[in-house]
Each structure stands twice: as C-alpha cells, then as structure tokens.
C-alpha cells in the first residue's frame, strides 16, 4: 500500500512536470536565453537594472536609435528631429504607421503619456527620470509632432531617448495596470511581444508579425526565431554548462575560464562584447590617509601590474584599462592610454617621497614620525604631536590600506591579485568584501576605505558627472576641484560635439593626473551561443542584444 502511494505521488509529480508551459504553444523556432541575474523589477521606466533591457529592448521602440557600428543617431519612432540652436528644445516628427501590440495607434499623445509617467514622483523612477535631465515639459504640436523643452541645454538627451528606459509603452496598457503590475503586462511597439513574466522563473517573448518600422540595422534573418524564453542563471559556473547541455541557446557573462574552454567547441560560438562606460575601477579616497597624498595614489597605480591581473583573472578576454572611460565610450580620450605603466622603481620612489622610507620586520613600509602627518583624528580633536615623540618615532605609521569590494564581477579575485602585488613592495592591503550594492553604499558612507570598487556602463560620458563632481552622489573619491566640476558640467550642457570632446578630454586627463582612480580592465561581456544561432548582435550600449536579427538554422539531420 505504501509503495502504491509513493508511486502515485511520483507519477503525479512527473505529470505535473509534463504540463506544457504557455511557451510551448507559441510558434517555433524557439530559443532559451540565459540572463545572469534576476532584476528586482522589470519595468524599464521604474527599474534601473541593465539586465531588464536584454529582453525589453525588443519589446519597445525608442524615438531614436543609435547605429551600433557608427554610434550615429538614426530614426526610430521619430522620422526626424530638429534641435534649436540654444539646445533648449527638440521637435520630433513621429511615424504614422505604428501600432502598439494591443492595437492602439502610436501618436504624440502616447509619447506625452509616457513622459508624464516617468516624470511624476509617484512612479518612483530609478533611472529613466534621471536620464531626461533638465526636462521642463513637452508640447504636442499636432497628432504626430511633439516638442520637448529643457530648462537648460542637455547634450545626452538623444542618447537617453535611444535607450530602453525611455521606451514608449502603450497608453492603454499603462492606464489598465498600475505601477506595480504593469511589469507583468508590458505592451510596446517593438519587434517582440511580451507573453508572460513569472518572477524567478521565466520571461517569454514572441515575435510581432506586424513589425515593419525598425531602424536600418534591424535585419530579418533567414530562419527568424519566433519565441524566446528568458531564464535566470544567477550562479556563474552554471552558465557555460547550461550552454553546453543545450538547456540555453545563448547566455551572457560566462566565466573567463569557461569561455576559454568553450572557444574550443565547434558547436558553440563566443561573442565577447566591449561594454562602453567606466572600466572595472577602484575609486581612491582622497580624504583619508594615506591615499590623501597624490604621490601615494600615483605610486599605487605604478605598483599595479594590470596586464598580470587581466591574464590571471580574465584570461586575456579584457583589455587593460588606463582611464575613467573605456575606448568604446563617446569622447574617450586616447592620450590617457598607457599612463602609469607598471613600474616598481617609480612606485617606490614616489612612496619614499611621500615619507614611507623605512621597512618594518614584516616587510611593510612605514613613515617615521616627525613627518607632517596628523595622527588619526579620533573624536575630532587634533592630536597632540608633542605628547609621545619617542614612542612614535620607533613605530612610525605603516602603509596600510583598506579596500572595499562587492562580490560580483570577479572583483574579489582582482583585489587579491593586487594585494599580492602590493605586498611585494611593502604595501599592506586589507580587503573587505561586502554582500551587495546596499552594503557597498553603506561602506562608502562611512568613509572608512582607501579604495572602493564601483563603475557603471553607458555610452555617453556624462555618467562621469555622477562620480567626480564635488557633491555628486557617487563621489566616493571625496575629491573636489572646481575646474573638473566645470569640465564635467559643461560637458553635458554643450551641444557642439567638438566642444564636448575637448571638455571630456580635459576631464579624463585631470582624473588621471590626480590619480583619482585605479582602472583595471575594460568591461567585456562574454556571451556564448550555439553555432546554430545566426545574427547575434548587440546594440550601441553593448549590453542589449538585437533580438530582431536572431535566426536559428534548422538542426542538421545527418
């Protein structure tokens, strides 16, 4: 009897597993796309995750697009646009032949509804609102013409409007659902329709057969993929395995060692995609001893063998980074390349110039006291230098640094290689690994670090403003420089691209002259896909695939 019950249980479980998910009723060919994390929310107007754009870039269209090859702006939902000479208003002429997935007609009102949704504080937009910059409002000139007005010039606006976070959603769907539920029922005008989203399990898209208004780089493949199921592969070692076993047909963020193995497999293809924006970098705290000294910060740059880090941790899949922006970013300034090449002698002479002239019994450098360094100010009172000169002279101040790292992106491994490299010339590095982004922010707020890892992706260099302007939210270097502030703030105000180039060039030079960051490697997303998948390409932001171009060659029957 007991066995009978057990058998019945097992049988029912098996049957439950066989119940088709809604995805299997959808048209073939069908692929599974592995995402590397499960975003906290999937609403592009609200949430900030880069991962959400991987599926949703193809559910929505944007007013303009950027050609991934040239970076130029090309028509999207807007066929043309005029910018006034003062850079304060943008007039967009919209397409008349576009329908949302729910049949609603696309027009200027729809764009207005979307802007309203992003702008009102109740929406709680984490990124889209910020991307609109100093937007003051809009005017609907006629059914298919809309004008955006700014309170001051904002050069990154077109780049913002080309991104999924400012994708245009169906006003009907927005009215039907609220801010919490819309993410499960998203309706756009894009080449794929959203079928379902089951948090933690899957997100399913199916091709929009009526789509005929794509940008020029959307090319219909021979055997177009009809259905895409996105699954979450949060554990890095499982990604390559899932690809090899055929559980997924494409996946991003494969571990470099696994990518090395995959490159020998004829059935698979590797697509390393450079991600524009900031490289993997450590911001150096200029308001904490000893990184408050320019010489020490410069010495740390010279003391780091970045090529060795890329070799060991990234298996040579990433280029060494030298500045605050990677080369695929707009207005990247190539004069910063090869600055601070690995040079131990230079590092040592800078450190001894900074006062670290002696080595203790553990091989750690220290600065004999008598040097112009205030003792650690505890409780705000200035330390009494005359109190115990004899005792202080014996010990001195050791060259100890604290580095705060997040668990992702192989940053802890990078930190450990740096620790080992610096140890050889007498720098004692303590690594503090925190559990996630919130803990990283908390650690930054305490100010108890010399180096902290943080970076963000983006094609437009205006993102530097968030990191290096005096009162910026991510100014974790604690650095304040009116000229650098001016370069960065003017950089997003100037419309003229030559002007912008000059300003961002000056900003990048200044950041590296003052050694505010320790850049390590340019970000490269290691995507792997089955060789049967054709047309694999990514947009101008690097992260987001152009799913329209995806085709699946039928399986070889031989």
């Amino acid at each position, binding site marked *: 009897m007991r066995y009978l019950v057990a058998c019945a249980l097992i049988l029912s479980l098996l049957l439950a597993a066989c119940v088709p998910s809604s995805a299997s009723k959808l048209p073939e060919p069908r692929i599974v796309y592995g995402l590397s994390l499960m975003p906290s929310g999937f609403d592009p107007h609200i949430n900030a995750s880069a991962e959400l754009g991987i599926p949703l870039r193809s559910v929505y269209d944007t007013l303009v697009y950027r050609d991934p090859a040239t970076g130029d702006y090309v028509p999207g939902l807007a066929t043309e646009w005029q910018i006034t000479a003062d850079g304060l208003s943008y007039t967009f002429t919209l397409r008349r032949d576009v329908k949302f997935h729910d049949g609603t007609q696309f027009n200027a009102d729809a764009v207005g509804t979307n802007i309203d949704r992003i702008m009102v504080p109740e929406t709680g937009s984490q990124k889209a609102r910020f991307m609109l910059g100093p937007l003051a409002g809009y005017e609907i000139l006629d059914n298919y013409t809309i004008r955006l007005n700014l309170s001051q010039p904002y050069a990154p606006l077109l780049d913002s409007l080309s991104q999924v976070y400012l994708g245009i959603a169906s006003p009907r769907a927005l009215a039907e659902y609220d801010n919490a539920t819309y993410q499960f029922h998203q309706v756009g005008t894009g080449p794929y329709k959203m079928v379902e989203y089951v948090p933690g399990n899957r997100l399913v898209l199916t091709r929009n057969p009526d789509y005929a208004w794509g940008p020029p780089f959307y090319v219909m493949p021979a055997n177009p993929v009809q259905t895409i199921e996105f699954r979450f592969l949060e554990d890095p070692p499982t990604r390559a395995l899932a690809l090899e076993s055929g559980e997924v047909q494409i996946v991003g963020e494969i571990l470099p060692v696994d990518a*090395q193995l995959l490159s020998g497999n004829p059935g698979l293809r590797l697509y390393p995609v450079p991600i524009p924006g900031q490289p993997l970098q450590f911001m150096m705290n200029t308001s904490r001893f000893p990184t408050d000294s320019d010489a020490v910060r410069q010495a740390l740059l010279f003391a780091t063998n970045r090529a060795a880090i890329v070799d*060991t941790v990234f298996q040579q899949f990433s280029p060494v980074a030298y500045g605050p922006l990677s080369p695929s970013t707009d207005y990247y300034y190539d004069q910063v390349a090869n600055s601070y090449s690995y040079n131990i002698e230079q590092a040592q002479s800078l450190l001894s110039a900074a006062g670290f002239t002696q080595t203790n019994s553990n091989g750690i450098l220290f600065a004999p006291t008598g040097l112009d360094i205030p003792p650690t100010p505890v409780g705000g009172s200035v330390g009494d230098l005359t109190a115990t000169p004899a005792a202080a002279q014996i010990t001195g101040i050791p060259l100890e640094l604290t580095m705060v790292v997040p668990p992702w992106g192989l940053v802890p491994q990078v*930190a450990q290689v740096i620790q*080992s490299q610096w140890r050889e010339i007498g720098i004692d590095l303590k690594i503090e*690994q925190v559990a996630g982004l919130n*803990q990283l922010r908390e650690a930054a707020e305490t100010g108890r670090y010399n180096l902290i890892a943080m970076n963000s992706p983006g094609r437009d260099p205006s993102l530097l403003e968030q990191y290096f302007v005096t009162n910026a939210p991510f100014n974790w270097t604690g650095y304040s420089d009116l000229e650098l502030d001016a370069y960065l703030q003017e950089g997003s105000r100037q419309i003229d691209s030559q002007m912008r180039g000059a300003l961002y060039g000056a900003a990048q030079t200044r950041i590296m002259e003052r050694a505010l960051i320790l850049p390590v490697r340019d970000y490269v997303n290691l995507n792997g896909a089955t060789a049967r998948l054709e047309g694999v390409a990514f947009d101008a932001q690097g992260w987001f695939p152009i799913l329209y171009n995806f085709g699946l060659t039928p399986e070889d029957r031989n």
Partner: protein
Amino acid sequence: MRLPPGDVFVFVVSRTDRLKVPLAVLATIILATTLAPVIAPYDPMAITGEPYQPPTREHLFGTDTLGRDVLSRTLFGGQQSLSIVLIGVAIIILPGTVLGMSAGFYGQWTDRLLMASMDILLAFPNLLLALVIITLLGSGGWQIAIAVGIAGLPAYARIARTATATTRNALYIDAARAIGVRSDRLLSHHLLPNVLPLLLSFAAVSLSWTMLNSAALAFLGFGGDPSVPNWGVMLAEARYAFRVAPWMSIPPGLAITATVMAVNRLADASQERFRNRT
C-alpha cells in the same frame, strides 16, 4: 546499532578501538592547523605560481585560481574555519544546555515561554536565519560564528529540553529529591550526567552543520577578507574552477569531511562509553 551510511567506513576502521582513530584524525588536523606557519611550504596569500596548476612537486596540491599554493592555504585555512566552528558551537552548547534543561526541568510557564521563543526561531530554515543575522551584523569571521551559533541554538535547546523532561521523572531523581537535594544541584549533578551522552552526540551534529553553514556564509561573500584562507571559501573558489581544475576542491573538501566524520565518531564512541559505565 544503526549507522548513517557515510559512517560505515569509519565504523569498520574504528571497531578495533572506537576512540583512538577519530582522536588521531582530529589531533592531526588541529596540529597541522596550528603548526601551519612552520610546515606550510608557502605564504598562503602570496601568488607563487601559474593559476590552475595540477599537483606538482613544487605545489603538492596544485595552485588555485590566482596561482596560490593550495596545500599552504588548506593548512592555514583550518585556523579560521576551526575557530569559527568552535565559537559557533560554544554559542550553541552553553546557552542551549542552560535554556533547554531549565525548560525541561521546571516545566510549566518556564517551559512554555522558552520553547515558544525557540520555536519561533525554529520556524525559519537555519541557514536562512543565519543569513538574516549576518545581514544585521555585517561581514567577517566573528560575525559568521555568531550567526551560525544563534541559528543552531533552537534545535539544540529543544533536544536538551526533551532529554531533561524524560529523565526528570526517573526514580533516582525522585529519590534524590526526596532526600532534599536542591533544584540547581539536582540539575547539575543528577540530570546533567544522564543527558550528557545525548547532548554530546547532538553537539557533534551541530558541529558538522555549523561547519557547513559557516562555509556557506563564507561562500556567499560574508567572510570579510576573501584572501584570508578558509576551507569554505576555498571550496567555493574551487567550484568556479571545477571545469579546468577539479582537483582544487579536494583538499579543503577532505579537510571539512574528515573533521566532521571524526567528531561524529568521537561523539558516538563516547556515548557508548557513558552507556557502558552506567
């Protein structure tokens, strides 16, 4: 006597002498760990070779993902791993015994109050509970020890309570009470020795999953400094390299397994001794 399947091997080995083998294993592990600075061939934090090397004469257990010597890291790794486990188990055993035995002995509202609070904690899977605690405490070795200790406490207190409650009404306890032995003495001199074998064997069980939970927390990035060697962290790192260097996981894995098995056997054997004595 029923044995968990994993223990069969040790059981066969230890038939000859039930205490000597696990004691020898534990002594070796503790000795190797404490003598690590003397016997380890390399600095455990220094990169001394190419990454992902298989075992060679220079690196007996190979090198890890960054090119550090796995043997040296395993030897040094015991220092943090074992201290975390010892502190964690102390946090389980000391308050757990007091709370559980008081609840079992006094019964009534003491029992209800204490056990209700333990049951609230028991309602969470213990790794989840440890995660919640460490999120509040922040990262680091000490924090891991406290988190796994508190997470392990309720199950242990429950066992201590049940053992005490069933022994409480034994004839010899009644007899002791009848001749006027005070409650605290009754607890410490009459009840404790009789529930001790059970508590010891459950302490060993606690120890094994304290080890596993602390490894899990270290793996999830709560260990503080990732360069400080720790068996749990090493195991997690090895998992990332499993495709290219499967041997990397063996030394820390074996160290954890050997420690846990030896402790389990030791508990069984000592339980046997207690039983034979009475």
